[in-house]
């Protein structure tokens, strides 16, 4: 069993018309035992930037804490929040510092640029970045999530439709994954607000 499949996770991020959405499942388990069902894997970094972390739970947690620390330091020095591209490059850099003893995490970054353009980025555990204009997935069954997103994503979706699409992709994607599920949380980020919804799916 791979170290990336020890805890289980599913993260999907999608871009719409001047909005992005990012969601994750809620299961926290140790191999086949489920421990809690209220563990989201998506964290808010600033009012228009979210970070999702799949992979080994302890590494995701540590990375999150380190990145909050770095972001706070940045805010103190620069007196402004980090832009999404800057943050993504920071994450990549932090991961590559540990090139030969990596954090076993798979990040997904979703945010809005200053002019409202969506920004989506995913990486592997050593910081290789890939930006996308449609969607990004990470987790224990990426093929299920890729298949759903590839079939359902369309260009220029409004926030409400983007939420519905992402929710369906997550819900149906995790139903074929034993290590992810037990409900989902989805955040939709628009230039003026962030709407967070928790969804009940198959609770198994």
């Amino acid at each position, binding site marked *: 069993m791979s170290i990336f499949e020890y805890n289980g996770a599913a993260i999907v991020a999608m871009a719409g018309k001047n909005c992005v959405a990012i969601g994750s499942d809620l299961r926290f388990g140790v191999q086949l035992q489920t421990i809690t069902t209220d563990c989201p894997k998506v964290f808010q970094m600033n009012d228009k930037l979210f970070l999702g972390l799949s992979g080994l739970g302890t590494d995701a947690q540590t990375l999150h804490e380190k990145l909050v620390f770095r972001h706070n330091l940045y805010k103190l020095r620069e007196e402004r929040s980090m832009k999404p591209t800057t943050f993504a490059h920071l994450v990549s850099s932090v991961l590559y510092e540990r090139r030969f003893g990596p954090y076993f995490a798979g990040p997904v970054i979703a945010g809005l640029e200053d002019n409202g353009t969506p920004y989506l980025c995913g990486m592997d555990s050593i910081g290789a970045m890939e930006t996308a204009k449609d969607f990004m997935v990470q987790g224990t069954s990426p093929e299920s999530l890729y*298949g759903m997103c590839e079939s359902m994503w369309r260009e220029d979706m409004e926030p409400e439709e983007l939420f519905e699409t992402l929710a369906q992709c997550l819900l149906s*994607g995790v139903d074929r994954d034993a290590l992810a599920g037990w409900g989902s949380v989805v955040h939709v980020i628009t230039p003026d607000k962030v709407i967070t919804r928790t969804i009940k799916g198959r609770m198994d």
Partner: protein
Amino acid sequence: QNRAPARVSVHLSSAMSWSPYTDNGGTVLAVAGEDYCIVAASTRLSSGFDILTRDSSKLLQLSPKVVLASAGMQADMKALQKMLISRHVMYQFNHNKPMSVTAAAQLLSNTLYYKRFFPYYTFNIVAGLDDQGRGAVFSYDAIGSYERSGFFCQGSGKELIQPVLDNQLKAASPLVIPSKSDLTSLPLEQALDLVKAAFVSAGERDIYTGDQVEITIMTKDGTRKDSLQLKLD
């Protein structure tokens, strides 16, 4: 004191050795409706990163109402098809009628389990119309464990496509009253559009799925064929 040197046997457990199996890639899927059955298969044949051919068939029409679709190793697929054709000829001779889809399903399960300790490297779907004229889809593992369902996919793109089919065709819950049967209530043309859309999506993300999709549609009026062009990359 001279002692004989200790002999240490070193077993290179990571040494490459010859394997009787190879994966030629490709995806197959089938959807059962109230009075129709759709079976589709990609036509690309691969070996590693090479494409061997862009138009090989994975479908075998055993009888007007029974189709076998196989993904996996083409050599074992051909051997399996030959075996089943031979058994079907004998069945028709003995019973004076073609095999029903349920009979063919059981025959395939037994044939696969016969080679339990040196399996056919094939991931099969048997599909057709049952004796009441309703769609039937049976899905197998390599050694013959099978289950009837309303829809299934196998092969290299199965993880990509299965959740899409679950989302569009599966009942919301098994506890819904009245109980929904496994068969989809979608009309034929909509189910066909879903099958084609699923293959286009799989073709984007799976390197072994592409070129063309061969589709067989069985209804009470007979069997017709359709095809879909996919990306060649």
